């Protein structure tokens, strides 16, 4: 059977009913979302189903949408069925006050570091992760830098004494 976006969508709706939503095909890639409690169930279904077989986790990352109340943080999974060569994007949303989602490390070994990276930058806690600690930033850091409340420094500021880089100090 040749897998198409319609068949995947149909199968997902058959299994999860109206809990999976937001089906879309931006640039030909099927994308949808599910409640965060269901993330493992959906991933497992996509992995195990004889027709779907999405057994390759291409990418896992976070996104911060500060203006979506109660669903500020997103976890985005990019999955790939290598046999049929079809990809999909699966998103779950969580509130920033309690950013807890289940880990996918049981299913994909590769999720280990990807989840650590997502935790490191967005503070999303992956419940059940074997070693959830920062990976690229220092352990002492007490904030999550890719969240939108941390803007990059204004490059035109002059109040900072940073003579070596040509701002502030005696040169300006």
């Amino acid at each position: 059977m040749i897998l198409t976006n319609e068949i995947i969508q149909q199968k997902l709706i058959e299994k999860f009913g109206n809990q999976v939503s937001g089906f879309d095909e931006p640039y030909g890639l099927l994308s949808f979302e599910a409640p965060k409690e269901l993330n493992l169930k959906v991933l497992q279904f996509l992995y195990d189903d004889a027709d779907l077989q999405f057994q390759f986790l291409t990418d896992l990352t976070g996104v911060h949408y500060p203006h979506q109340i109660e669903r500020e943080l997103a976890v985005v999974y990019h999955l790939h069925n290598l046999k049929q060569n079809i990809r999909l994007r699966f998103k779950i949303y969580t509130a920033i006050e309690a950013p807890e989602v289940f880990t996918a490390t049981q299913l994909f070994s590769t999720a280990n570091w990807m989840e650590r990276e997502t935790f490191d930058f967005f503070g999303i806690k992956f419940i059940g992760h074997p070693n959830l600690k920062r990976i690229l930033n220092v352990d002492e850091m007490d904030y999550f830098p890719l969240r939108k409340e941390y803007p990059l420094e204004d490059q035109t500021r002059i109040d900072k004494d940073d003579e070596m880089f040509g701002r502030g100090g005696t040169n300006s």
Partner: protein
Amino acid sequence: MLEKVHNHISLPEGSIEKQTTTINLGPTHPATHGVMQNILELDGERVVSSEQTIGYIHRAFEKLAERRPLYQITPITDRLNYCSSPLNNMGWHLTCEKLLKIETPKRVDYLRIIIMELARIADHLICNSIVAVDAGAFTGFVYVMQYRELIYEIYEEVCGSRLTTNIGRIGGFERNFSNTAFEKIEKFLREYPKVLKEFETLMTRNRIFMDRLQGTGGISAERALNYGFTGPNLRAAGVDYDVRVQNPYSSYQDFDFKIPIGNTGDNYDRFQVREEEMWQSLSIINQAYQKVQAFKGADAEIFHADVPEYYLPTKEDVYTKMEALIWHFKIIMGETDIPKGEVYHSIEAANGELGYYLISDGGRTPFRLHFRRPCFIYYQAYSELTKGAMLSDAIITMSSLNLIAGELDA
């Protein structure tokens, strides 16, 4: 009576009873070929367990990208896998073109393929010759370096720089290839096969080299897939997944090439897969070169798509035409709004599938940009690959995985 003086060194509790040795490999160790740390627990010379620490050269690229217009992100991508910067640059341009729905002319695609395959050769060349160095053979490395130098000269002729290339623009190239560039490509195509052959004669069937590499650092196809391996490392384990074939970009479908695979996924297979890929890349460059030469007259002058919103006009036009001046200003100041959208695009970089996940909310800069860095993803298998191996084999495994610190840390 005097109190007993304790003047011996006080060791941490339990360290006398401990049967294993802890050693610190890195962060700056000559054998790691990059800034990364491994804390190894050794029983004699065997690795019992290891823990990786990365992030020593983390530069927050994903955050930086959120404040830059698209064209200013290209130099950031240079610094991911700095052994093959042009591949990263092209991957980024292709992602932008996908988001902006730009169609590139065929000649641009072929020129890009020449550059991308040259970059792949440069990257594999480094990786394989470094594997040889770690196995104790320095000669091959020093010898092939002059051909990487020739590749760098080609880059220089095309874009003006060598290592962090910033090559190409959204829509094509900043200028047409010069005659010198074509001459250098011809020279490379003429001379390199002989050198690669010589390198293979030196290494491939070398008894000592084979004994060091065969059966070390192996991984099964199943585990490799579960670990998200891509590129030569996955193919060495026997899975013929190559983005160039599965999801052709930049007109790879017009080319005839083979995807070499191994079967044990060990260091020797990885070495062999990379060797064969270099031959395939040479063949692709040859084909692309023929195709480029077939363009005549005005067609041979095409080196970019017609996208004035994103492609800088020539200086002559800027000084003489109002339109061009406006575009120039808007592009340089980053005042072009990019369309709203969400796109994932991946290319077959030298290490594997290099993906760009770009979210635009309709502003002037990306809302979020995430790099799927193959290095970062497969390095986590290192513990599993080296468990029970000799320390010296663990070193070879590290270099045959082709770990590039820039890509690891982003």
